């Protein structure tokens, strides 16, 4: 297994930039997820690491050695695609064994290696079956087995479970993470699904329009998003982002949404941080679980009205109208049951973010 180093990588098609000045260091044994919407450059980055895509400038280092000019076959990297790409005429065993056949090792050794991988993937009982006889999840396990069996320097995966149904995806997430822990293989995983990224990654690298937005642990990108894009791309239900007006008053900051009578009270530092940036346009960001809801009036809470109730089973999401704005809050199931019911709302100050609307960046000093 190996370290991967991406230094100032750039790629463009004509004037169309696919990757811009991308810098990312992936440590030996780390599971890094490249996350972003379609067209953000994540797959191109992955393919560049694999050697399936040329870059226009920058360096790619595997264990310190530059590989940009090496063909894919000489980089010793395994690749798993979304489509299973198995040989239909071979059994699962033969498919997994295939990369070993080129290595001139004994049949006995091949059998042992395949069995070890199959055991980890829980497909020992399927080894004699052909791909056409396998279910989707099992086919993907075989594909992953083929990538694992030869112990490449790194494993790259491009939306490997995107085509599976919701329940199977839930299981595969756990299995893939588990597999990573057992094999300790350097893994780069591409997805547009923030749930996959959050649940499997050691670190998430979030991309948008070819530009790396933030790199951090799931907790970091969730709790301290660097900008509005990350704030709203990570987390479901998505973070509330509301335009607001700030007003300094007696060492405190009054925060008002559009059409709001009573303001939220924040500490004086909020106003100072906003003033330091010098922009008037500030957006407040707060996740639904940091919107606190009470049925009776309380000091520090502002009045709101229930617009919609969205039950999720284990909890409810309430769309609450405050002034002309709708804010979503997470509450226990059936905390509120009536539409248009008045409620009182407060924001958890330690989990409320402020962004400069012009740059999209979180205000410094959080």
């Amino acid at each position: 297994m190996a370290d991967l180093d991406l230094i100032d990588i750039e790629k463009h098609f004509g004037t169309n930039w696919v990757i811009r000045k991308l810098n990312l260091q992936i440590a030996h044994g780390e599971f890094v997820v490249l996350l972003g919407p379609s067209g953000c450059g994540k797959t191109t980055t992955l393919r560049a690491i694999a050697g399936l895509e040329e870059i226009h400038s920058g360096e790619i280092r595997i264990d310190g050695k530059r590989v940009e000019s090496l063909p894919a076959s000489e980089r010793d990297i395994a690749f798993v695609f979304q489509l299973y790409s198995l040989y239909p005429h071979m059994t699962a065993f033969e498919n997994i064994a295939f990369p070993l056949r080129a290595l001139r090792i004994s049949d006995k050794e091949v059998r042992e290696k395949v069995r070890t991988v199959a055991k980890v993937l829980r497909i020992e009982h399927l080894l004699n079956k052909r791909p056409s006889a396998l279910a989707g999840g099992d086919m993907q396990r075989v594909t992953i087995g083929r990538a694992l069996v030869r112990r490449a320097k790194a494993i790259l995966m491009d939306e490997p479970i995107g085509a599976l149904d919701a329940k199977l995806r839930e299981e595969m997430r756990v299995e893939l993470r588990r597999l990573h822990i057992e094999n300790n293989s350097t893994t780069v995983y591409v997805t547009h699904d923030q749930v996959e990224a959050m649940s499997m990654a050691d670190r998430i690298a979030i991309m948008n329009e070819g530009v790396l937005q933030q790199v951090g642990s799931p907790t970091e990108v969730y709790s301290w998003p660097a900008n509005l894009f990350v704030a709203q791309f990570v987390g479901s239900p998505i973070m509330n982002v509301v335009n607001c007006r700030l007003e300094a008053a007696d060492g405190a900051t009054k925060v008002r949404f559009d059409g709001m009578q009573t303001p939220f009270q924040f500490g004086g530092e909020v106003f100072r941080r906003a003033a330091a940036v010098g922009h008037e346009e500030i957006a407040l960001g707060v996740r639904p679980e940091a919107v606190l809801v009470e049925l009776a009036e309380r000091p520090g809470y502002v009045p709101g009205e229930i617009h919609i109730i969205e039950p999720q089973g284990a909890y409810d999401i309430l769309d609450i109208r405050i002034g002309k704005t709708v804010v979503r809050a997470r509450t226990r199931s059936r905390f509120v049951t009536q539409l248009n019911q008045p409620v009182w709302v407060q924001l958890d100050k330690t989990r409320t973010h402020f962004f400069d609307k012009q740059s999209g960046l979180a205000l410094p000093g959080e």
Partner: protein
Amino acid sequence: MANLILKNLCKSFGDVVAVRNLSLDIRDREFFVLLGPTGAGKTTTLRCIAGLEKPETGEIRIGENLVNDWSAANRDVALVFQQYSLYPNYTVRKNLEFPLKSRLRRLPAKEIGPRVQKAAETLRIAHLLDRRTDRLSGGEMQRVAIGRAIVREPRLFLMDEPLSNVDAKLRELLRSELRGLQLKLGATLVFVTHDQVEAMTMGDRIGVLCEGELIQVGTPYEVYNSPHNTFVASFVGAPAINLFDATVDGEKIVVVPEKFEFALEPATRARLNQVAGRRNIVRVGVRPEHVNLVAQDGLAGTLYGAEDHGVEMILTISVADHLIRATSPATTRIPVNAPVQLAFAQDKLHFFDLETTKNLAVA
């Protein structure tokens, strides 16, 4: 708007039964969701209501009328599909006007303008009226498609997975937007989806379908908390409910085949005795939020996996070769492979029949 009654609806395609003796009573102004996996018969049911399929037997009533023999056009229902099916070369305005100019309706010209304007304002696309639809974003196109249904002021809205082509973030916004719209219009709406989150968050009631059969009709709360069988229990809710088979041994539950056991609280024992009858083996269901980590006297296991979802952690715990899923606060920090102990919130345990898969408390 109108109510909708389906009575003993049957529809097959060759040897394949798509809809099996389906009866359903949808109220006026209700947001009703037909939920099920691919091939469950939900789209066929919707198409029968719309008049695009003819059922072999059964009755379809919209309001006071038995409409089985009415053409699709005469039923006065508006259908919104997954594909937006807009006219790409036309402006938004023309797309919205189109249904009002059809031969059947042919509204006087002076009524068309205001109706289009009103629908556009409701959907917040009034500023796009003169734009061509091929210049719109996915969310805008979907709004126009819905707008085209609204302008007609039909008796019934039918929607077939209208949100499945848009990305996750937009889907979330459109969900609450559509629900808000339906409440505002007081519309009767039948909505087909395979996405349980859509069903839970939007429906007044959900009808869960599997292999052509309507398994349960209930509010989101009922469907989630009292699933009629194991299919509904596992189809609704994410992360999925834990299910394991267990023998009932006097005062405790023994989970098979890889054994682990736990004592039943008196109230749970009484509840199980009441429903289990002479069964000595049942399938136990428990949702991840009802599996709690405890410091002592719990079931011993090891942490198999931990997923950080930001708002909470989803833990997978291995207990005697069974994998049990639990949710826990976001601050939980336990290393993988560490020993843990868990306990079930026993008042939340479900018991199902092994053969029929039915919930014993419901059957």
